[in-house]
C-alpha cells in the first residue's frame, strides 16, 4: 500500500516531490470533502443510492475497503448509474490521485 501511495504522490503533477503519504492523504481528504462530500458523506445522495444498491455498510466511500484506484478513477470520469461525470476542471488529476490515496488508505480495524 505504501508503494502505491508513493507512486500516486509522484504521479501527481501538482504535488510536491517531498510530500509524505500522510500529506497526500490530507490533501485527498480536503479534495474529497470539497468535491465529493456533498453526495458521498452521511446523508448525501450518493450515499443513499449506494445503500439502495449495495447495502448500508457499503454506502459510505470513506469506510469502504474494496475500492481500487482504476475503479474510482473510472467512476469519476465516466459516471456510474446516476452519478454525473466529473471533468478535469472540477477534479484535476492531481486532486483525483490524492482522493484515491485518501480513500485507499488503511482503515482502522473495525471493532468486533
Amino acid at each position, binding site marked *: 500500500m505504501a508503494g502505491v501511495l508513493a507512486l500516486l504522490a509522484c504521479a501527481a*503533477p501538482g504535488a510536491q516531490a517531498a510530500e509524505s503519504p500522510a500529506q497526500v492523504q490530507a490533501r485527498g481528504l480536503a479534495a474529497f470533502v470539497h468535491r465529493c462530500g*456533498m*453526495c458521498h458523506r452521511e446523508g*448525501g*445522495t450518493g450515499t*443513499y*443510492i449506494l445503500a*439502495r444498491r449495495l447495502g448500508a455498510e457499503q454506502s459510505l466511500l470513506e469506510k469502504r475497503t474494496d475500492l481500487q484506484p482504476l475503479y474510482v478513477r473510472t467512476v469519476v*470520469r*465516466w*459516471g456510474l*448509474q*446516476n452519478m*454525473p*461525470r*466529473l*471533468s*478535469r*476542471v*472540477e477534479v484535476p488529476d492531481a486532486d483525483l490521485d490524492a482522493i484515491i490515496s485518501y480513500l485507499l488508505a488503511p482503515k482502522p480495524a473495525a471493532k468486533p
Partner: protein
Amino acid sequence: MKLILPPGVSQARFDQAMAAFARVIGQEWVLATDEDRETYLDMYSPGRDESHAAAGALAPANVAQIQAVLKIANEFHIPLWPISRGKNFGYGGAAPRMSGTVMLDLGRLNQILEVNEKQGYCILEPGVGFFDLWDHLKQNKIPLQMGIPGNGWGSVVGNALERGFSPAGDHSSNICGMEILLPTGELVRTGMGAMADGKAWPLFKHGFGPSWDQMVVQGNYAIVTKLCLWMKQEDEAAITLDIKLDKPEELKWYTEAMTPLRLRGVLDGLVRITSYQATATVPTLRSEWYQGKDSIPDSVIPLMMKRFNVGWWNGALRLSGYSDVCEVQLKRVQAQIARYTKQEFAVIRGPGNASPGPSTYPLQMTNWYGGRGGHIGYSPVMPADGKLVQEQFERTRRRYQEFGLDYSGTFYNDGRSVTNVNLILYGKDDAEQKDRVRKLFQALIKDAREQGYGEYRTHLSYMDDVAATYDFNHHALLRLNEKVKDAVDPNGILAPGRNGIWPKAYRDQRGKL
C-alpha cells in the same frame, strides 16, 4: 467519446487551433482526450449522446486568457460553448447544443469577489457554486440569504443566467450588473458598472440607456466573467404552513386563494405546490409501487400519500421577516384559506435563518426506474388563474398517461404568472421508454402553444422547437435575436444554437440533432 469536429473545420485546422489554445492557457487546461469529451456529455440525455458532443474543453484561468482564447477561436472558426460549472442537469448538463463545439469551462474563475452585508449583494465569478457561497456566508457569519435551486451543486452565476428559480423567486431578477466579454474579445461592464469605478454597479440595475443584463441572460451574445447579484437580508422569523390538499381538483381554489396574497405582497417569492409523486421519487424506487409499463395507476396514489403523510398536492407556504409582521400576515393567509376550505393546516414557527443550505438530495429522483436514469422538464408559463391552472394540470396529466409515464407536476405562482414545471423521469437505457418521453415532450410543446403558453427554459434538444413557438409576426423575435447575434458575433463562435439563436455561420444546423 470520439472526436466530432466542428462543422466545416478540418482535422488539421482543429489541431492547429488546439495547439494555439494550449499556448495561451497551458496544455494542462486543454482537455481533449476521449475521456475528457466523455465528461462533458449530458449524463441524463433523453436522446443520443452524439447529438450534443463536445470536441473538447478549454479551461482558462482569467479574463485575459479568455480574450486570448476568443481571438484564436475567431481566427480558426472554432465554436465555443461557455459553462460556469456544467451542472445544468435536465437541460443538457455540461454539453453544447451543436456537436463539435468546444466547451469553454469557466470553473477556474471561482472567486467570491465581494459580499456586502449592508446593501445585500455579492459579486461572483462563474465558477462559484452554491456550496461555496453557502460556506463563505457561514464561515464569515454573514447574515444574508441565498435562493437555492433543487440541485445545489451548480454555479450561482450559471443558474441566474439560465433564469433558474426557487421558492425565493426568479434568480435572474436579482442580477444587477455584469462584466461581460463580447465574442470579439471586448470587455464591457453593464449598468452603472459602465462607468469606470461606477459606485452603484451592484446597486442600481439599469444604468443609462438600454439595459444589457437581460440580453445576456439565456442568450449567446457574451460571456459573463463577473456577476452582481442581490441577496436578501436574513430574516428574524419564519412561519411555515404545511399545505396538504387531498384532492387533485383543489389546485384550482389554492391558486385562486394565493394569487391576491402574492400580488399584495403578503407572500413573496414563488408560491409552490407540487404533486404527491415528488415525495416518492427521491426515497423509493418505482418498482416498490408498480411494475407495469404504463403510468402508475390511481390506486397507488393513496398508498404513497399514506406512507409519506402527504396530500395529492403539497407545498410549504412560507412567511418570513419580522416576527410580529409574520404573525399578522399569517392571520391574513389563514383568513384567505378559510374562504375556500374548512381544512386547517399545521403552522410551524421557527427562526428566519433555518435554511438547510444547498443539497444534491433531489438528484436521487433519477434513480426512480433503477439503473441509469435521466430527467427532463417541460415548463410552460401561463396566467395565475385557478381555472386555467386546473385545466393545464388535467390536460398535462392525460398526456403523461397517454404515453405511459408517471405524472409529476409543480406550479410556481408569482401572482401574475404561473410556471408549471412538469418533471419527466426515465431509464437512460430504455430506448423504447425514451422514445415515449420524446413524444410526450413534443405533445406538451404543442398543447401549450395551442393555449398561448410558452416555455421559460428548455433542454438543448428542444431549443429550436421551443424557440419556434414564439411565433408572433412570423417569428420576428427570432429574426431580431439573430440580427443582433450576427452583429456582435460575426464569426458565430459563441454558443451557436443556444435557445434557438443560430449565427449566420451555422444557421443550417437549426433543427439538426
